[in-house]
């Protein structure tokens, strides 16, 4: 064990039961139990990455907590992470601190989004992330559950994003306990370009993309059970529902591998599928006028995109290719072909390379 200096306050606990009650009493958890961040465990994290524990990643809104590596490691231990997961957690924090993500609004807005961590690249296999069946749920895969949980605890304990205090989520998001999805790598039946490659990284890179998720909608694509034309019609309907449509905003489609293969075989690679959806995903001004409430100062508010006096004008749900992110994950699907659509809230997805090799 190293001799690097840790500066966090030390609490004495008689046993695990004592610690559990202390954690609840001091508000160190959102309600689920956490593990004790012992000096031994925290040092093991710091020793693994061989960096100064007082190195600052940034200031986490709205609580203005300083995210040092030591504080990040403590929360990772509390979540149950292994030391080799820490580079992933650090990268996730770096992504959320990018201004494009708009962490302040993500943490505090009444919309109550849940930050989704998307893991892609060789790290998926190296750390044994589940990218198959039940990909969004607890499947016993430690990397998925504990890294997602560490991100949540960091936002809770360093960022103080706590409903009833500085977070004003009207409903909140079920992903605000742990929300992570891993993309199938090419050798795991993904026929399409990996998400991090679409966003400017190399195929051999590993990456974390943080997505400020609003709605999480499972829908039936019907790939293989209907024509591609009708598949596109169904997805367009999901992408343009009025409950999410007062401004153009970024969206994430998670397509299961069978659906992706069917589309690929029909001549739709990811780019063609995406571009066709962007083109088709529009709604008439007369429909959009029946919604209301979103500030007209929003960057892509519908009133800035078309002539508001022309009821026949068509408002785009997305303004460019970056607005529609597509990835392949999940298990085998029957003909109804379950997929997921997630819309961004306030900020946009930020992709960061994980600067670490686990070799």
């Amino acid at each position, binding site marked *: 064990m190293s001799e690097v200096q840790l500066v966090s306050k030390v609490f004495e606990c008689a046993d695990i039961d004592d610690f559990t009650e202390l954690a609840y009493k001091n508000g160190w958890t959102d309600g689920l139990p956490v593990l004790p961040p012992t000096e031994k465990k925290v040092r093991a994290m710091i020793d693994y990455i061989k960096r100064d524990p007082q190195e600052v990643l940034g200031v986490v809104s*709205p609580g203005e907590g300083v995210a040092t590596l030591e504080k990040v490691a403590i929360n990772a231990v509390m979540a149950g992470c292994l030391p080799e997961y820490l580079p992933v957690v650090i990268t996730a924090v770096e992504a959320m601190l990018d201004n494009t993500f708009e962490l302040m609004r993500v943490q505090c807005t009444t919309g109550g989004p849940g930050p989704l961590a998307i893991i892609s690249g060789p790290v998926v296999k190296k750390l044994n992330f589940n990218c198959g069946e039940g990909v969004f749920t607890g499947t016993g895969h430690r990397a998925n559950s504990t890294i997602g949980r560490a991100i949540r605890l960091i936002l809770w304990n360093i960022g103080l994003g706590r409903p009833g*205090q500085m977070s004003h989520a009207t409903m909140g998001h079920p992903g605000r306990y742990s929300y992570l999805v891993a993309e199938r790598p090419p050798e795991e039946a993904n026929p399409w370009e990996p998400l991090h490659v679409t966003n400017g990284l190399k195929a051999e890179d590993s990456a974390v993309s943080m997505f400020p998720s609003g709605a999480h909608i499972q829908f039936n694509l019907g790939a293989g059970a209907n024509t591609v034309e009708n598949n596109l019609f169904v997805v367009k309907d999901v992408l343009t529902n009025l409950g999410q449509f007062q401004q153009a905003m970024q969206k994430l489609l998670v397509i299961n591998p069978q659906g992706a293969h069917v589309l690929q075989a029909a001549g739709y690679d990811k780019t063609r599928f995406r571009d066709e959806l962007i083109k088709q995903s529009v709604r008439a001004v007369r429909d959009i006028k029946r919604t209301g409430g979103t500030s007209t100062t929003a960057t892509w508010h519908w009133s800035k995109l078309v002539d508001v006096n022309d009821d026949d004008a068509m408002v785009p749900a997305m303004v460019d290719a970056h607005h529609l992110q597509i990835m392949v994950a999940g298990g085998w699907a029957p003909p109804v072909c379950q997929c997921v659509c997630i819309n961004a809230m306030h900020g946009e997805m930020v992709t960061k390379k994980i600067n670490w090799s686990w070799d």
Partner: protein
Amino acid sequence: MRDTVNMVQQGVPTVGFIHEPFEKLARMQAKQLGMPNAPLLIYPQDLPSNDPADFVLKKAEGLADKVVNMLLSQTGGTA
């Protein structure tokens, strides 16, 4: 709130303009930033789309007066 605190620290007359539902957030964040008494103007919770236009205008004018008074009070002046 970061902007409010930064501007006050630079000696610029400042008012943090806060919608009532976010008052707790603003005050807690100001405290976290080391300025629990940051100059804030809390405006009432509203539904501007449902309120009559003349009511909204009157409210905006009243708040504008308060903003001016708060700014001038920081410079020693009066409206």
